[in-house]
């Protein structure tokens, strides 16, 4: 399951099932090429540590106190504790939004206090729950410095180009997530002149591809962003928002959504609404967690390990 040329190995669906059962996660590896295979956690750990490892954390929803998880700070703490004990320490974290539940100063404070215990740099993008105050002032003040527009930006690490996008503002009635012209133009310019062999990681709160339109799980103009990314050999799109792992590979683009650290949400269409899903207490931590991503230069593999709080 972890061999490099596992083209005839388990189907994606199979691997996903494995991941759920094992409670560990899937890994993908890529560098400057097309991600053609994936395997389970052992492969990632075995990988040389020479590449880049970073961690995705998402949907902390600090301030949420409803039955689906009355204590989201303690599950966030557990997630951070697990980060600290990872065999390979990530270089940094990305947070794909919904840091808080209601954009309150205390929620931002509490989240920051907890997340900073990992002692890693964190690159944030906002979720719709982080911009509920007037003009999204609190988010901008804390995380938006140096970012463009509503908070988008890019940076480089170990030869990988990272792009944080915002698709939770100016949403239109009846529509999905939205990037908007200004941001798309910025993205096009940001990518211009970059070598097609540069591995790209795009992260945003709402999935860039349409997971489930009926629940608004997708981005209206995500296709335009993907157009600009088409020429790159390795593109990884990391999202949150839907509080469950979901993945898809389309050409050179790998899509992956992370679990929340706060509460699970139902599978698309499996419940009357996408609201917080109450599960038995002993099951909750199997549905919460983070994702660990590893790049290894010189190999055609990129690895993503979903890491539930409890397996």
């Amino acid at each position, binding site marked *: 399951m972890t061999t490099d040329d596992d083209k005839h190995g388990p189907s994606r669906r199979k691997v996903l099932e494995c991941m759920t059962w094992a409670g560990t996660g899937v890994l993908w590896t890529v560098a400057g090429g097309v991600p053609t295979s994936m395997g389970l956690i052992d492969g990632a750990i075995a990988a040389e540590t020479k590449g880049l490892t970073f961690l995705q954390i998402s949907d902390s929803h600090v301030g949420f106190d409803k039955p689906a998880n009355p204590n989201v700070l303690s599950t966030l703490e557990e997630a951070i504790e697990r980060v600290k004990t990872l065999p390979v320490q990530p270089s940094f974290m990305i947070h794909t939004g919904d840091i808080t539940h*209601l954009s309150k100063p205390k929620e931002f404070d509490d989240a920051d206090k907890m997340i900073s215990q990992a002692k890693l740099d964190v690159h944030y993008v906002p979720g719709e729950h982080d911009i*509920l105050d007037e003009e999204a002032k609190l988010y901008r003040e804390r995380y938006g410095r140096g970012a463009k527009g509503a908070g988008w930006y890019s940076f480089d690490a170990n030869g990988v180009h990272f792009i944080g996008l915002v698709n939770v503002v100016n949403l239109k009635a009846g529509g999905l997530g939205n990037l908007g012209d200004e941001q798309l133009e910025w993205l096009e310019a940001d990518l211009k002149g970059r070598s097609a062999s540069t591995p790209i990681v795009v992260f945003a709160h709402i999935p860039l591809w349409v997971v489930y339109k009926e629940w608004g799980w997708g981005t209206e103009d995500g296709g335009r962003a993907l157009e600009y990314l088409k020429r790159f050999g390795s593109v990884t799109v990391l999202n949150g928002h839907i509080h469950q792992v979901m993945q898809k590979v389309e050409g050179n683009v790998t899509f992956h959504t992370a679990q929340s650290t706060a509460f699970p949400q139902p599978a698309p269409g499996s419940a009357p609404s996408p609201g917080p899903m109450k599960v038995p207490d002993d099951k909750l931590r199997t549905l919460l967690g983070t994702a660990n991503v590893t790049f290894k230069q010189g190999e055609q593999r990129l690895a993503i390990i979903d890491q539930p709080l409890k397996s």
Partner: protein
Amino acid sequence: MVMRTRVTGHRFTAALGVTAFLAIGLLALPAQAEEPTVKIDNFTFNPPTLKVAAGTTVTWKNEDDIPHTVASVTRTFKSKALDTDDSYTFTFTTAGVYEYFCSLHPHMKGTIVVEAKTGSN
């Protein structure tokens, strides 16, 4: 037998009676439910379409575990984020069709149809 005679024999009167009854019903409505309420639950507005007379104050109440907003498509009105059990009210003074949505979950849509006041003309 008596009922049937009345219906067939006094059709015109009966029709008038129905009109009068409807008119009374409309007049009585504000007294019964002064603030018509749209319930927000399961990521939907209930009822999705609400008809009210001009001058009516409509209340939205969020019964979900997730915050929602009530935002007019034409920006005529917009609530702040409503947490669980929070309410928002808006008074519709002018007749018209007001479409709104949740600006956080834009697939959630609703309509308020405001009719000109009856009885005054």
